[in-house]
């Protein structure tokens, strides 16, 4: 079963609508036991990295999440802040994050661009992954973006006052800085290709 982590201030209902539209059924995960039977895990995100980590801690989800994603290699998709918290640290509130991927999360330069970035930006996918994605416009709402230490983690890039990481992938871990669930047909297509993955694909 596809599990969508539902925590305070996340936009899990929007992700559920998109998953259902694609013809899949899914369940919200509110507690760690809910994750145990997951075929795929989606971590939606809005708000700050710190608040997201705190919510996941309050729900006592992190250990099980790490067991499922890091040990059992269940396909995982993080969205927006769900991408940012995968790194070691975020400049936003100087927050400690999960550290699944090496690198940090930094703020756009408000001297160069309006912050937050809000709107449709063109993403170029820079490597092949088991989930197919083609260059297209996706919807972003973010003030911060990830800077991976290992550049092979970069899946997609876009430009906002300079190139930034728009999507990452490493093994079974996928994440998009843009809101795939709100990026029209392009987003639905990417989401569908993620949901089609089996562990054998990875």
């Amino acid at each position: 079963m596809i599990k969508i982590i539902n925590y305070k201030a996340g936009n899990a209902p929007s992700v559920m609508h998109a998953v259902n539209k694609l013809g899949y059924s899914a369940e919200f995960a509110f507690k760690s036991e809910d994750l145990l039977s997951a075929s795929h895990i989606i971590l939606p995100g809005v708000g700050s990295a710190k608040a997201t980590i705190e919510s996941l801690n309050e729900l006592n989800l992190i250990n099980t999440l790490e067991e499922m994603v890091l040990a059992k290699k269940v396909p995982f998709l993080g969205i927006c802040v769900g991408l940012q918290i995968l790194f070691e640290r975020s400049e936003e509130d100087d927050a400690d994050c999960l550290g699944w991927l090496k690198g940090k999360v930094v703020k756009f330069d408000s001297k160069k661009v309006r912050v937050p970035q809000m709107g449709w930006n063109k993403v170029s996918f820079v490597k092949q992954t088991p989930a197919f994605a083609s260059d297209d416009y996706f919807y972003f709402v973010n003030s911060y973006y990830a800077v991976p230490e290992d550049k092979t983690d970069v899946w997609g890039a876009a430009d906002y006052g300079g190139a930034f990481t728009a999507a990452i992938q490493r093994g079974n871990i996928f994440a998009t800085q843009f809101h795939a669930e709100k990026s029209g047909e392009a987003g639905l297509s990417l989401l569908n290709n993620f949901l089609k993955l089996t562990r054998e694909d990875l």
Partner: protein
Amino acid sequence: MLTKRLIACFDIIGGRVTKAVQFQDNIDVAPAEELAKSMYDAGIDELIFYDITASSEKRSIDIETVKKVAKNVFIPFTVGGGLKSLADMYEALKAGAEKVSVDSMAVRNPDIIYQGAKAFGSQCVVLSTQVKKTNKTTSGYEVFIDGARLATGMDAVEWIKRGESLGAGEICLNSIDKDGTLSGYDLELMRLAESSVNIPLIASGGGGTPEHLKTLFTETQAQAAIISSMLYSPRLKRNFPVSEIKKYLKENGVCVRPPKAY
């Protein structure tokens, strides 16, 4: 590169989209979820719904309509009208909206901007404001509330600066003078605003033709424009499909998301 956004705006009464001129004489257009779906299919970038009678009828926002729209429309949408508390905002976001718009209520209780941004993130909070030219304030624009009926004496530029500092993620500026006139956006207002705040700005009021959008996007830093009449007003002899508007903008050097990007 970030594209300029076209935001279709719906004034909702009883689940149906209506069209007014200068905040009066609403005529019926279509059920909200149908028009939203057809605009989504046509390639609109974003939607905004105002439940325009929620405040005067002293009820909270029409959540059922929000839910119906969210099931079939996979682009961001904002809802406003009748949001009085954090709980109301949370209901709208839970029903599938990305953002909430606050207007008159925020003038009465500016702290709601801070509270909303703290609880849900700045990106969720759009400060919408109705402004009118005046000689009574420093910037030359005054804030109005309650469907543009009540003058507040507040300076429009001071108000949006305050909104930004309280945590609003975006400002939607509606020119009362231009609203419904189809004579083009208030460029002077947008220029004043862009030099005053650093968050994204949405221009509203006056858009009647694709050319008005071109002028707005080439002569100001507005990142988005509210359009409604030119898309679907039955009062106009001619409506413009989204694809035609975007084609025109692209040909005129404005960066837009192609209507069929797949």
